[in-house]
């Protein structure tokens, strides 16, 4: 298994289809199962659910920065908390203003 380094921003991948993803598409398997792309789900403005993340870089009440294979996801808002965090997914709650991939 590839050992991941935390804290450091990994090299940004170009978003091209890998062989794995091509095969998955051919076999009609949902892509997120095999790919390492992050999946972000928001429910209203109160909850953000991120799968396939790599680690958190910064966490305060106003800003949460999360590392992924395709860049850093920055979530800004107020009163933000991490409701649950595991190896695969993270649930952030609070009054969310903005979600973006910062350069």
């Amino acid at each position: 298994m590839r050992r991941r380094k935390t804290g450091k921003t990994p090299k940004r991948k170009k978003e091209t289809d890998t062989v794995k993803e091509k095969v998955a598409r051919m076999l009609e398997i949902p892509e997120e199962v095999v790919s390492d792309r992050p999946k972000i789900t928001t429910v209203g403005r109160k909850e953000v659910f991120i799968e396939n993340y790599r680690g958190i870089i910064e966490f305060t009440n106003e800003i949460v920065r999360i590392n992924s294979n395709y860049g850093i996801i920055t979530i800004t808002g107020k009163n933000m908390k991490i409701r649950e965090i595991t190896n695969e997914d993270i649930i952030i709650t609070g009054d969310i203003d903005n979600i973006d991939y910062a350069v």
Partner: protein
Amino acid sequence: MFLIRLWHYLKGYVIIIVSGLSAEKFINICTRRQILLWDIERTGPAEVTMKMSIRAFKNARTAARKSGCRVRIKAKKGLPYLIRKYRRRKGFVAGLVAFALLIYLMTSIIWSIEITGNYNLDEEVIIKQLNEMGIFRGATKRSINPKYVADKLMINNRELAWTGVEIKGTKLIISVKEGIEPPPVIPADQPCNLVAKKDGIIVSVRAKNGLAKVKAGDTVKKGQVLISGVVESIHPEFGSKFVHAMGEVLARTWYEVKKEVPAKKINRTRTGLEWNRYTVYFLDFRVRLPSGNNPFELYEAKTVDKAPVIRNRFKLPFGLIMEKHYELKEEEQALEREEARELAEKMAMDELMEIIPKEAEIVDRQMQIFTSDGKEYLLVTVECTENIAMQQEIGGN
């Protein structure tokens, strides 16, 4: 969500404060090591509060060292800590166990026996039979096999048509249905007569078998043969034949009741005064609490059983009986003539309804008022049509 919280609570968790400049690093290391964290909140510039299961906390120490953070426990929550806290209080635990045991024991015993549906069969008789089977108040529920008890009761009491035995909580409910005993019937192959049950005037005779001895318009007396089972041949030399007489003889019958027309009525009302007597009981032991003597001469009594009943099912064997006595006062009220007659009529009709058989059809009703000895009387006569035929064995000749 609630289920997860409950799970965390049951397993036990710690609320920890992580202080240091790289609390994020601590969180990352924890997640790599498959440690679940929840409710992470920044509480200060260099301080993060989070929750973590007890088991994971052992690993958190090394994570803290690696990330250069300081970890301290703010609170311990959950069932394991609660148990640990109460384990030392032996008396408390013993009490808890004793309580559970007592509840279990108390509810596994029959504390009351209820018998319903019996009219002719005495409750005492059933109770006695139950006692012989080893069922009494205080017997364990497990020792009772409802089917066996029901069968046994059915065998012992021929008058029961159906028996149901049910255990409801601590109550044993025995519901019986009594069969109506058939009247003694003369078997169809035995010869018999039909005789008059009571006096009357014949309205119609329908002989299905036998020889009609009376015709419409005849007056008959009680016991008189209506349809004879002895059929004589028109040729005397052949003698007579005996048959089982059958048929219906409708007759007009009269019932009368004489009632005095009351001049006054006695009204009883509660004065509002009340006196109670209390009795505490456990099973059949009763202790009457001292409360003096009944101060009322004329009273109405009501008994209230204040036994604790849990959810309508578990009746406990002890309780308090309250006998309420209400003082009454009598007032005489002079009645109007009309009112008095109505009252007398009502009383008379009530009495008549008791006497007149159900199958009789009421044809007419007459009322007559007459005075004797200075008192007024009401005579109510009811005319009915009914079947007065009754089987009787042919006796003697």
